């Protein structure tokens, strides 16, 4: 028999509305409210042994207390799966559901299913940490939310690994794994092309990704007083590649001290699988323009040429890895009192 714990807010648990949003965490034995509908779906395959509730304000403003108290109950009861909500478009409720399921997964490895409306901020925040079912916007769509949430909970509680999001019906969590279809890409591409020209139904296998924006830093007040550092993903490293910079799919960056007025040809080599490197090997300033930077320093155009280059190799690199490297480089350069960076990319 699969053991389930169900979480709801003050409204779902029947205590009241905004007036009860400050309620501390509590619990009942057995199902309540929407939990009764879930239990009806489960039949004798699963049982909601406990219902946990808390006010939305409590869950968000006293988050640590809320989570610790919830985990106490989960530790004692040892459920196989958790249900949370459905929160519909209620933002604080959705965030409470998500944070609870995330903590339970991290501490106990217990999987959980939450119900989120299309505009619920809980989706962006927590979709990776639980299985989210997309519900309607408001509580009048409760009936339709029951079967998808309960069905997935049964699978998870029974120890099954759910299939892909579009087959199981949960909100895609941004994890793309390899699946063997046995149907070659040539067949699938031809089918997709023919469906499109015939006006039939088709679905892309890779939806387009939209990237986050970063706020641009303020411009330099005075270039002639600024310290400029050179950074590159062109893979220029000291001869002998002392730190084993990888040619492809690299995961590291290194700072290398520079002396004199240029990158001396012959003292450097290039590790990068994505471009023809011979011209940079002959004259590394073509990738890391230290000679120009030093001249501008002497001319007083810039304040100082930082005497290091930060090297990375970007061929076939993962974007997230490169983002991490960028963050680390930024921290490093700030500690060295560098004001701005000229980054060359291939």
């Amino acid at each position, binding site marked *: 028999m699969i053991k389930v714990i169900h979480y709801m807010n003050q409204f779902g648990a029947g205590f009241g509305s905004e007036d009860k949003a400050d309620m501390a965490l509590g619990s009942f034995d057995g199902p309540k409210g929407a939990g009764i509908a879930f239990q009806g779906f489960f039949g004798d395959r699963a049982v909601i042994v406990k219902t946990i509730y808390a006010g939305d304000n409590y869950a968000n403003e006293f988050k640590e207390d809320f989570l610790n108290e919830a985990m106490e109950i989960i530790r004692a009861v040892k459920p196989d799966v958790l249900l949370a909500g459905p929160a519909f478009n209620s933002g604080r409720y959705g965030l409470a559901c998500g944070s609870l399921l995330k903590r339970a997964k991290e501490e106990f490895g217990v999987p959980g299913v939450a119900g989120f409306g299309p505009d619920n901020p809980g989706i962006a925040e927590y979709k990776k940490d639980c299985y989210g079912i997309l519900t309607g916007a408001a509580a009048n769509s409760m009936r339709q939310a029951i079967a998808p949430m309960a069905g997935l909970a049964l699978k998870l509680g029974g120890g099954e690994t759910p299939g892909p999001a579009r087959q199981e019906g949960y909100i895609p969590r941004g994890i793309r794994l390899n699946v063997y279809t046995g149907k070659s890409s040539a067949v699938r591409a031809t089918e997709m092309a023919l469906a499109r020209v015939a006006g039939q139904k088709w679905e892309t296998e890779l939806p387009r990704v939209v990237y986050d924006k970063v706020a641009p830093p303020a411009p330099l007040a005075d270039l002639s007083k600024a310290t400029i550092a050179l950074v590159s993903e062109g893979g220029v490293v000291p001869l002998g590649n002392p730190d084993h910079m990888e040619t492809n799919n690299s995961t590291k960056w290194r700072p290398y001290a520079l002396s004199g007025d240029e990158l001396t040809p012959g003292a450097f080599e290039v590790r990068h699988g994505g471009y023809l490197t011979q*011209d940079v090997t002959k004259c590394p300033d073509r*990738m890391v323009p230290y000679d120009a930077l030093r001249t501008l320093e002497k001319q007083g155009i810039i304040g100082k040429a930082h005497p290091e280059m930060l090297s990375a190799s970007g061929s076939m690199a993962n974007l997230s890895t490169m983002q991490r490297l960028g963050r680390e480089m930024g921290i490093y350069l700030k500690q060295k009192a560098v004001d701005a960076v*000229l980054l060359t990319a291939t």
Partner: protein
Amino acid sequence: MCVTALYNVAVQIGTNRIVMSGSKFHYPMGRPDLPPEDEKEWRLRQTRATLAILEKPVEGVTVFTQQDLFP
């Protein structure tokens, strides 16, 4: 700020200050087709004009072309 010959990737991932290199992607700050002294001149001019961009405010993803560097 990023100097590159392939600005479209930098645009898509949200780089804010992008300068289009005046050369090929194998050597964004190089011109191996020029005699060595001329190439050094070229690189100095490019670096100076590129760094001048750092004093300009931008509101988001902005691509500076060679015409923007040398109006």
